[in-house]
């Protein structure tokens, strides 16, 4: 059994102190939201999916077997929730304006925004599964083993998928930049 500081809070919640769940929500909301946003790629729906994931986790808390970290279990719920939202919506067109294009690199202004826009455009052209694993990989919060657990895919498959997805993303970006250069 893994020792996880969240287990103490879970015990309080299961003991009837429902309000303690707010501690877990505050602790993980940014990561859960990041997962749903990267998959759904639309602010409002991503937030709804993230809230839904927390709700599902709360209702299933009694069944959480504590074999993994609470966060990993929660992220898996968030991932599955986001994927099912995405499938339901069958979203093919995404709103570039609605994305969080934030970076803490040294550059600023239009150039940086343009580059991020092209990278996001390239990301959008990736398949749903490639985009999901790449998003989790670049969030840097998750190890490859954790990504494997969240997506319920063998670790070796995830490694290969991430590698191939990175190559495809670079190719896609090159194509976009070439097209952009031609239209200028």
């Amino acid at each position, binding site marked *: 059994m893994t020792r996880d500081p969240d287990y103490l809070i879970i015990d309080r919640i299961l003991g009837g102190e*429902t*309000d303690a*769940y*707010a501690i877990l*929500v*505050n602790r993980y*909301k*940014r*990561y859960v*939201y*990041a997962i749903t*946003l990267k998959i759904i790629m639309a602010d409002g729906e991503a*937030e709804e999916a*993230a*809230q839904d994931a*927390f*709700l599902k986790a*709360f*209702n299933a808390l009694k069944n959480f077997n504590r074999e993994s970290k609470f966060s990993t279990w929660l992220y898996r719920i968030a991932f599955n929730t986001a994927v099912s939202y995405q499938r339901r919506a069958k979203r093919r067109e995404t709103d570039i304006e609605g994305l*969080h294009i*934030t*970076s*803490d*690199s040294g550059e600023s202004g239009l150039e940086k925004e343009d*580059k*991020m826009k092209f*990278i996001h455009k390239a990301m959008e052209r990736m398949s749903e599964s490639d985009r999901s694993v*790449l998003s989790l990989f*670049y*969030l*840097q*919060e998750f190890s490859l083993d954790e990504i494997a657990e969240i997506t319920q895919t063998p670790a070796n498959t995830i490694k290969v998928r991430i*590698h191939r997805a*990175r*190559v495809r*993303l*670079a190719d896609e*970006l*090159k194509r976009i930049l070439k097209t952009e250069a031609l239209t200028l």
Partner: protein
Amino acid sequence: MNMEAEEKYMDELLRYLDGLMTAKEAEAFEHLIREDNNLQRKYNDLKEMEMYLRSTKLPEPSAAFTSNVMQKIEAGPLLWRRLTKGLILIFGVTIVAALGAYLIATGTLDNSQTTITIDRVQHLEKFLPNATPAFNFDGKLMMNVVIFLNLAVALIVLDRTVLKPYFQSRRTS
């Protein structure tokens, strides 16, 4: 550069960027990058893309995120639990009030009037020098008070456990 060579270089570039090469391998690859303009361009593009993707900050959900989740939890199974408890309580106090009303209606309490005289308590004069007044006890009046209190409790419970959560959930949905 043919497709195969390009794929190989791409793999090598990713290995280099991920720091998976040995020092010797990295040194040799750096030399290759310096020598080959095409590879150098690829390296710069890939490095820039990786840098942007890795520097992406975690997005912030709305300020009301936690309170919204907690509200939804309250409106879910917890609401049903509270609702059930409230309904049981309302049922209980209504039964007591109905029982009281039945007793009054059937006239069971019509003759339950008596006078309570404290003076009859032995040795009381030691503590109370003046004569104490006598109290009239009216069972019917008492039952009316019980019915009234029960109905008041029933209304409060109805408001807090049924009506208020119902209208709140309607407003949030």
